[in-house]
């Protein structure tokens, strides 16, 4: 073999060693050198040499190539110091060496009989592989049909050689093995390798115990007595089950070797049995141990939370980002801020803010001098902006804590709805003249409040925000949807912009003297106006009671009404004087407390079916995946994301969405009508809104299979909807 070296050198000198992405491809062929008469010198070899590895194809057929006789081929890899290649389970990184054989008919190659590897730590990771020289032997099976004087073996091998850096390399090898004579030049290497290859043992009582924990318990029985009491190395053949680099425990319990090995946090295999190799220096054994117990719940099952599933399905029809048909698309923070400002401005015209408008008008007329007016205007602005910031911070905080919430989330809570109803009742009774706050509140507090119009204005700002929050005005929807995805500071700036927008008209009015001059002089008309304004307050209460009815049923709404009556009684009792006051107050408070105890819990008790209205006019309930199903049938879908507490939603529902022409168009285009109800908290709906880039209701979407969903304006006009439908 030695005489061939210079020729090999000449051949290998031409090999390009690429230290890059392209695998090194090296070809060595020595078949032409197998001259007649020389074949008895032993196996022909084929060598590929790179800067890191010398790879040589070897054969061992001591009794010739015949059926039933041992015939082995193998790739010997000799590594430069520090470099290594990999075992069949390469550990945390790396790749096992691959051998692809091309063999003549009648010859079959078996699997690589992998020699015992060693553990190669790399920083915090660990690999299983080989350094120095390793032979990867493969048995060949010879069928009786095989004929010929030479067995031509061709091999394409690919290996990854690593130090810290890794280089994938490939080589093509060819070898001619004489059939009728002995090929035994590499006998020693093959014999040494066979000796170092793990010896299979029966599983017997061996097992791998899998619990719910983060480790597995291995017990191997039937290991030779010579190993007992010794510390063994462990190599699992199945990859991605354990953490190769993690610390583990082992112990002998009599003749049984046990180990507790940490599971990989990102385990991708759940085998029914685990072939394990244990080694003591050069002696190794392999046991295919059955797995007892069940693997910790397959992570895949819990992967998609229902909310996500719903959200994603809602968008599945196209997979593309939703298109805005009206309003502003959420482009960048600046656009979001502008949209928010505009939205806040329009918020003043929303039906739910109307009662606040009334309070403000009354308050505004009472202020006489310009300086105070400006101060109150500013105080009102600060009140509004701070309240929006507070609500925004609360929303973001709760979302960060994992709650599925969106804008208007306060009103999804029946307790908050009930409290707001109580607040509005109180305001209504006050405006109607049943009581003055001064008679109820402790004297000092009332006096302080009256003397501080600034504080008053600030508080009215807070109140205005509380009432306005459930209404998402046009332009605001996109901004808020965008805001919740932003870093906290930027998101809060969007909330602040809404507040500024909402306060601007009052601020402007308070700053411009001309506005004050236009307003009528204070006079007796104010009392009449004040009493008149009590009615929007009570109307709001009626609405809130209805909202609560959607959330907690007729029992909840009834309980709320009863408690509101009792609250009014308590307040009335406090307006009395003398003994009557003491007696009646005590009586009414007792009655109120009893009522609260008796029927109060009804208010927050959820009803099993939280339907805001029976399915009517062809509307069906939205469900996660429903849009997907309909789209799969090629049907277009209109979804109305709504909530009972959203006045804008209710307005659109009663007008545009009940419009005969719109409904006729929907029918003509065979559009399925779905209504997603967000009256109570519903993570599925929240997620579906998020998928559309929204975070509040109303949202109107048209899905058409194969097209991005189209989001319509919050102020839904008949013409808009019909125009959009015409495009289907």
């Amino acid at each position, binding site marked *: 073999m030695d005489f061939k070296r210079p020729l090999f050198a000449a051949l290998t000198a031409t090999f390009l060693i690429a230290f890059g992405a392209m695998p090194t491809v090296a070809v060595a062929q020595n078949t032409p050198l197998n001259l007649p008469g020389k074949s008895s010198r032993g196996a022909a070899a084929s060598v590929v040499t790179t800067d890191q590895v010398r790879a040589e194809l070897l054969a061992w057929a001591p009794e010739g190539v015949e059926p039933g006789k041992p015939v082995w081929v193998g790739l010997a890899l000799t590594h430069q110091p520090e470099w290594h290649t990999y075992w069949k389970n390469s550990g945390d990184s790396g790749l096992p060496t691959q051998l692809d054989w091309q063999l003549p008919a009648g010859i079959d190659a078996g699997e690589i009989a992998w020699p015992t590897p060693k553990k190669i730590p790399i920083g915090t990771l660990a690999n299983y592989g080989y350094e120095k020289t390793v032979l990867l032997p493969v048995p060949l099976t010879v069928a009786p049909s095989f004929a010929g004087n030479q067995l031509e073996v061709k091999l394409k091998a690919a290996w990854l050689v690593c130090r810290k850096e890794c280089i994938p390399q490939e080589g093509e090898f060819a070898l001619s093995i004489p059939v009728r004579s002995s090929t035994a030049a590499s006998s020693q290497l093959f014999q040494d390798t066979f000796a170092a290859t793990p010896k299979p043992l029966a599983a017997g009582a061996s097992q791998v115990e899998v619990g719910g924990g983060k480790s597995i318990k291995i017990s191997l029985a039937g290991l030779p007595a010579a190993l007992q009491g010794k510390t063994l190395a462990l190599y699992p053949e199945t990859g991605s089950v354990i953490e190769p680099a993690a610390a583990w425990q082992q112990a002998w319990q009599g003749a049984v070797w046990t180990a507790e090995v940490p599971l990989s946090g990102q385990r991708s295999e759940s085998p029914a049995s685990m072939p394990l190799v244990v080694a003591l220096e050069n002696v190794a054994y392999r046991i295919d141990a059955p797995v007892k117990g069940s693997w910790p719940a397959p992570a895949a099952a819990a992967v998609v939370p229902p909310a996500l599933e719903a959200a994603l399905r809602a968008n599945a029809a196209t*997979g593309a980002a939703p298109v805005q048909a009206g309003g502003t698309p959420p482009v960048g923070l600046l656009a979001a801020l502008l949209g928010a400002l505009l939205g806040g401005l329009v918020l003043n015209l929303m039906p739910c803010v109307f009662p606040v408008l009334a309070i403000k008008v009354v308050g505004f007329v009472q202020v006489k001098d310009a300086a105070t007016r400006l101060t109150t205007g500013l105080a009102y602005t600060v009140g509004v902006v701070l309240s929006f910031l507070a609500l925004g911070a609360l929303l973001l905080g709760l979302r960060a804590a994992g709650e599925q919430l969106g804008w208007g989330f306060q009103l999804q809570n029946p307790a908050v709805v009930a409290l707001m109803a109580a607040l509005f009742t109180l305001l209504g009774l006050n405006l109607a003249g049943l009581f003055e706050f001064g008679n109820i509140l402790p004297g000092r507090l009332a006096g302080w409040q009256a003397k501080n119009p600034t504080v008053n204005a600030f508080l009215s700002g807070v109140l205005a925000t509380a009432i306005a929050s459930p209404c998402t005005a046009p332009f605001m929807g996109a901004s808020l949807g965008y805001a919740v995805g932003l870093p906290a500071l930027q998101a809060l700036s969007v909330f602040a912009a809404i507040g500024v927008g909402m306060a601007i008209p009052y601020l402007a009015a308070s700053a411009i003297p001309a506005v004050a001059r236009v307003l009528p002089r204070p006079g007796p008309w104010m009392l009449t106006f004040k009493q008149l304004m009590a009615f929007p307050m009570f109307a709001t209460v009626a609405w809130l009671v209805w909202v609560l009815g959607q959330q907690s049923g007729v029992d909840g709404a009834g309980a709320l009404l009863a408690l509101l009556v009792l609250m009014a009684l308590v307040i009335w009792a406090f307006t009395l004087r003398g003994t009557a006051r003491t007696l009646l107050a005590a009586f009414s408070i007792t009655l109120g407390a009893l009522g609260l105890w008796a029927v109060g819990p009804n208010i927050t008790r959820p009803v099993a079916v939280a339907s805001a209205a029976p399915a009517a006019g062809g509307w069906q309930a939205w469900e996660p995946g429903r849009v997907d199903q309909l789209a799969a049938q090629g049907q277009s879908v209109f979804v109305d994301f709504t909530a009972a507490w959203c006045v804008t939603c209710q307005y659109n529902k009663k007008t545009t969405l009940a419009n005969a022409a719109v409904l006729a168009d929907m029918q003509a285009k065979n559009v399925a009508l779905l209504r997603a109800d967000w009256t109570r908290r519903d993570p599925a709906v929240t997620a579906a809104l998020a998928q559309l880039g929204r975070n509040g209701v109303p949202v109107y979407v048209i899905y058409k299979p194969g097209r991005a969903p189209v989001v319509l304006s919050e102020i839904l006009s008949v013409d808009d909807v019909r125009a959009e439908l015409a495009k289907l």
Partner: protein
Amino acid sequence: MSNRTPAVSPLTRRQFSGALAAAPWLASAAFSAQAATAAVGQAAPDFSAVDTAGKTHRLSDYKGKLVVLEWTNPGCPFVRKHYSGNMQSLQKEFTARGVVWLAVNSTEAGSGDYLAPAKLAGWMAEKQGQPSATLMDESGQVGQLYGAKTTPHMYIISPQGQLLYAGGIDSIPSARVDDIKTATNYVRQGLTQALGGKPLSVASSRAYGCSVKYKDAA
């Protein structure tokens, strides 16, 4: 209209009302502590890292969006295999569909493979890669948090912040570009399924590639 029972447990509602009643500045207390290491099906741990342009990114910034984490190292042949076009087309396809794609380089500054931010950005630009951002993680903290072992090592995080996928980029562990054609791309499959609202058929696989060149544990 909806006939689903609202999924509001009494406990969450009580917490909710409590939080609502509490002053908003207490809301920060509601931020939950994060778990230690990433596991599929669990909450993906939050992190913050600076990108090649010096901008700080927090995972929590991207709540509401699908997020892909891609461990990268231009010095690694497996990374270069996939940057022959495969990785770029994935980045382009899915960032266009609203997915946030964060390439993370956890190579320690002392490694021969280390690229300074400007050079890494230059490499990414030269390769016409289109991740949403390329993050520097010389300390290896983000990598250790996610148990990233190889480059590439891929993760998909749900809009709710759950780890949906951890593992290799595809089904054929090799350094050969030719294998990309025949391999099942688990990231494309996973993202497509997630965007389609389906559970991931493969939620974890063996990541293959070069080891991440982590800073040695101090």
